[in-house]
């Protein structure tokens, strides 16, 4: 189609939470197949879907426009002051309306981010920090209008349309003129929509007349809420869920029909044939809006140089690394190797302009050290420990090793740089830092404080409609009996198709009858449609973004439920697309447990072992691992792991590294587990055994894992070896697999993969087999370096469990919740291994578990319903008052009522 006659400039994705019913990616692909050449996404008060939409649209051949529909508090009556004859109910001093803002320039984008940030600023200001709806004071537009085009908003709640529909001609006229006063003539357009509701045609005629009267152009928009008519049913239901009403009771809130869906440009032009000026207007306006979020964000890596003014980041990093290197490697062959590796890495880092990024991470580790000193008691064995450790692919980097980001020597461990840094790196490398929980809490706050509210925020995560939530919320909207819904919710696990849910319903008592009712059938269909849609904005477990330019001009930032924290509106994928420096601060329960264990050992034995010197070759530890005697050990304690340990019989750290990565969703669904176990057996019987490869080209990359794909980077290496992908292309493949529902992107990757492999004379059936395995593996595996870091922690926990079983048990219980097993199972397992557990005692128990002559004394915290607070107060009281045998009887305990009962 040469010139589509219409451009859609007003559309909501599911990131208009509980309103839009389609993913941005679905919107983009539907737009392409319907023949759109340009399209805008305008979610309510947010840009969470904007980056995903921009990339998906660009990939599908649709030019994306960025925008948002903002909720503004506007006072239509302040000028006239005639509060007496207000038509809008109880004469509010101001009311809430919508306006649509579209980005024209980079300045406009920055302004839109600021406006959305302001709109959300007070959403957590109540005493309980419960989220309230965002709203922008109308006056705030004045300072941040530049580069934005303002549309009058949707037919129902748009500023001008709503006033006009309420019969307030004069106020609508005035509102329109006030918008022109702010945005300037030519930057305000009146939206003409056709929602197919009663009175909407007259409203459109009235709006066009008003626009002509004031001298403002008109633009047709679709106010799209779904990419396909099928989703309109879900849209109805989401509106009910949002309003906490049933479908039956929410007629007034719902749209009333299924007309607000994405349509072909021709179709829209035909439906709005009585407003040809507005239809033409969509083309004229779209042509002006040339800001491209995939290209024009204007983000630069921060050039953080701490303490050396005038020095470039490149210099500072190189100097620090060289200095550390001479310290850590004695003169000789290893130092030479290390120097070569360092030069290679520094060269790549300079090439990508990433020096500031590494310095930033070093700074953060520095802050972590300070936080750790503050939260760890003086004299504790933990004070000497590093406050965190790196994992992920960063562990393969010598720069990370030298700057303290990782504790694994990549030269000694033979770790590859591979995915972490390469010539055609498309996105910033990931550095994950694991911290004990207490350090992490303080660190997040401190980073936001140190870099400032405008420069640092947590990365967002978007919980999707999971099975149970979908059943409960959609079931309630459908007014199905609460008890039945609850039963179904508890039954259901792990299905995703409507047929599967129908089967579950059929299995309920009277299931067949239920399935004859439309409501029950609707539940199955709606739950399947809702699967994968974002439900609300939440915070990523530990990702943070820090920016030298104000972050609030790159992405809107909103307050978090947790005091002192704030979240940017993008998830990790969007942050990666933006090229943001993302820092992962993960809280790891086992790190806390190991630290606590060292403290307990120091208390009971006088000094704690130095874990960095224990070596990784204790036969007694491996004997237990090979016996699957691993309950409580990091990463290798699940039933699946235990079963596999019996077969694979790990003998060293490398085996553990594979083991940790093997029992993961990726290798499991990529069909890697059984072949690996079989090949490993064969190799043990015959050290000369050569595992079969799908193709000889794969031998070099799959040799260390006996012919199967176990590690994340092997997906990349396989695509490079078999299909001749460049590292950048391989990275594209990984990303295509990580994006949900992006069929088209996968199809394109498959074609490139097939063509590349055919070019190397690989037979078609082999290409197919290998690609299927890669897709099965998808994105659900560990990088090797990440596994290596986890393997170290697995070994250390196994070592502590073997040599200090009582302290280890106490530490595990104190670090709950963590791991796979409840405390009772851990206690039973320890008893089997000769560790006695003593009951809680009001006279001697501390708050948490302690070690008493080689036995574990349970802490007061373990007493059901007592709670932490009460346990702390009991111990404090006992310490000040002294111990008396009669104490608990004659003296009222300083506890009001068990905290759970309150």
């Amino acid at each position, binding site marked *: 189609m040469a010139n589509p006659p219409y451009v859609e400039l007003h559309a909501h994705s599911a990131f208009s939470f509980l309103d839009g019913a389609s993913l941005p990616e679905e919107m983009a692909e539907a737009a392409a197949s319907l023949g759109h050449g340009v399209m805008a996404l305008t979610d309510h008060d947010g840009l969470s879907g904007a980056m995903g939409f921009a990339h998906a649209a660009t990939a599908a051949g649709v030019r994306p426009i960025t925008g948002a529909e903002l909720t503004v508090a506007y006072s239509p009556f302040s000028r006239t002051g005639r509060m007496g004859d207000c038509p809008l109910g109880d004469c509010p001093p101001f*009311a*809430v309306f919508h306006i649509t803002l579209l980005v024209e320039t980079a300045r406009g984008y920055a302004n839109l981010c600021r406006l959305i940030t302001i709109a959300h600023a007070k959403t957590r200001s109540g005493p309980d920090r419960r989220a309230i709806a965002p709203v922008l004071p109308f006056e705030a537009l004045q300072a941040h209008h530049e580069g934005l085009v303002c549309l009058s908003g949707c037919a129902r709640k748009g500023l001008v349309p709503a006033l006009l529909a309420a019969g307030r001609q004069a106020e609508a006229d005035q509102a329109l003129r006030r918008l022109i006063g702010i945005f300037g003539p030519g930057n305000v357009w009146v939206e003409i929509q056709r929602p*197919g509701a009663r009175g*909407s045609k007259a409203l459109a005629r009235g709006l066009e007349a008003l626009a002509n009267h004031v001298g403002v152009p008109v633009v047709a928009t679709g106010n799209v809420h779904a990419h396909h008519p099928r989703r309109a049913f879900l849209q109805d239901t989401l509106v009910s869920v949002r309003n906490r009403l049933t479908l039956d009771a929410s007629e007034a809130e719902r749209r009333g*029909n*299924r*007309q607000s869906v994405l349509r072909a440009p021709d179709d829209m032009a035909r439906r709005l044939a009585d407003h040809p000026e507005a239809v033409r207007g969509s083309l004229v306006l779209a042509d002006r809006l040339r800001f491209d979020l995939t290209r024009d964000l204007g983000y630069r890596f921060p050039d953080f140089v701490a303490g050396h003014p005038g020095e470039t980041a490149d210099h500072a990093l190189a100097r620090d690394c060289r200095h550390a290197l001479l310290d850590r490697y004695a003169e000789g062959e290893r130092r030479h190797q290390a120097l070569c590796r360092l030069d290679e890495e520094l060269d790549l880092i300079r090439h990508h302009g990433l020096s500031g990024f590494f310095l930033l991470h070093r700074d953060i580790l520095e802050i972590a050290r300070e936080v750790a000193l503050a939260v760890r008691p003086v004299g504790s064995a933990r004070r000497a420990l590093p406050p965190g450790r790196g994992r992920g692919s960063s562990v393969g980097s010598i720069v990370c090793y030298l700057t303290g980001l990782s504790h694994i020597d990549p030269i000694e461990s033979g770790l590859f740089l591979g995915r972490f840094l390469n010539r055609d790196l498309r996105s910033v490398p990931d550095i994950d830092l694991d911290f004990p929980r207490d350090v992490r809490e303080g660190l997040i706050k401190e980073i936001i404080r140190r870099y400032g509210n405008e420069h640092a925020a947590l990365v967002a995560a978007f919980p999707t409609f999971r099975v149970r939530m979908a059943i409960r919320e959609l079931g309630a909207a459908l007014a199905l009996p609460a008890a039945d819904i609850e039963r179904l919710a508890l039954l259901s696990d792990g299905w995703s198709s409507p047929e599967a849910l129908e089967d579950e319903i059929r299995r309920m008592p009277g299931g067949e009858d239920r399935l004859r009712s439309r*409501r029950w059938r*609707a539940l199955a269909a709606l739950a399947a449609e809702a699967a994968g849609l974002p439900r609300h904005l939440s915070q990523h477990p530990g990702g943070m973004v820090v920016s030298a330019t104000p972050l609030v001009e790159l992405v809107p930032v909103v307050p978090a439920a947790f005091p002192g924290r704030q979240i940017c509106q993008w998830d990790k994928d969007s942050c990666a697309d933006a090229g943001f420096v993302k820092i992962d601060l993960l809280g790891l329960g086992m790190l806390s447990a190991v630290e606590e264990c060292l403290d307990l050992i120091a208390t009971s034995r006088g000094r704690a072992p130095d874990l960095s010197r224990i070596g990784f070759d204790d036969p007694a530890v491996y004997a237990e691992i090979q016996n699957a005697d691993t309950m409580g050990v990091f990463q290798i304690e699940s039933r699946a792991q235990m079963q596999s340990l019996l077969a694979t019989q790990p003998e060293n750290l490398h085996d553990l590294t594979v083991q940790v990565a093997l029992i993961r969703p990726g290798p499991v669904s990529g069909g890697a587990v059984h072949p690996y176990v079989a090949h490993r057996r064969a190799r043990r019987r015959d050290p000369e055994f050569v595992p079969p490869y799908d193709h000889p080209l794969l031998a070099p990359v799959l040799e260390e894992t006996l012919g199967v794909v176990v590690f994340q980077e092997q997906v990349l290496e396989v695509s490079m070896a078999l299909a001749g992908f460049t590292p950048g292309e391989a990275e594209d493949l990984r990303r295509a697999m990580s994006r949900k529902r992006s069929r088209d992107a996968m199809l394109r990757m498959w074609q490139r993969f097939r063509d590349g492999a055919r070019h190397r004379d690989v037979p078609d059936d082999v290409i197919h087999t290998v690609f299927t395995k890669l897709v099965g593996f998808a994105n659900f595996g560990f990088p090797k370096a990440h596994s290596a870091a986890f393997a170290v922690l697995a070994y250390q926990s196994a070592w502590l469990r073997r040599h200090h079983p009582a302290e280890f048990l106490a530490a595990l219980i104190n670090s709950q919740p963590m791991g796979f097993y409840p405390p009772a199972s851990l206690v039973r397992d320890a008893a089997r291994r000769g560790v006695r557990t003593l009951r809680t005692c009001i006279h001697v128990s501390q708050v948490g578990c302690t070690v008493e002559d080689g036995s574990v004394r349970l802490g007061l915290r373990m007493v059901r319903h007592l709670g932490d607070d009460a346990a702390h107060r009991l111990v404090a009281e006992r310490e000040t008052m002294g111990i008396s045998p009669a104490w608990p009887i004659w003296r009222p305990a300083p506890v009001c009522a068990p905290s759970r009962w309150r």
Partner: protein
Amino acid sequence: MEQAPRAAMGTRALRGLAGAHPAEVITSPDGTPHAVLRDGRRRLVVAVRDTWRVQDRWWTDTPVDRTYFDVVLEPGRPVLIFREIEGGWFAHG
């Protein structure tokens, strides 16, 4: 804070078929009503004042999918008629 005014929709006619009775309507080729038979007489539609679509109650055993026409019949009598998606015309009043 008050919600935005929402008078734009008017009330939605969703009260089932109560108050509506089958009507005979002659349509133009584009599907819009051309004339309505009333009291055995054929009355031309002189104006369509508004049309809208109601799609609702799809989760019940009585789903609704109708196109409404607010028309004026000669010689100037307003009538509200609708066409069911399943077929058949009805008139209010």
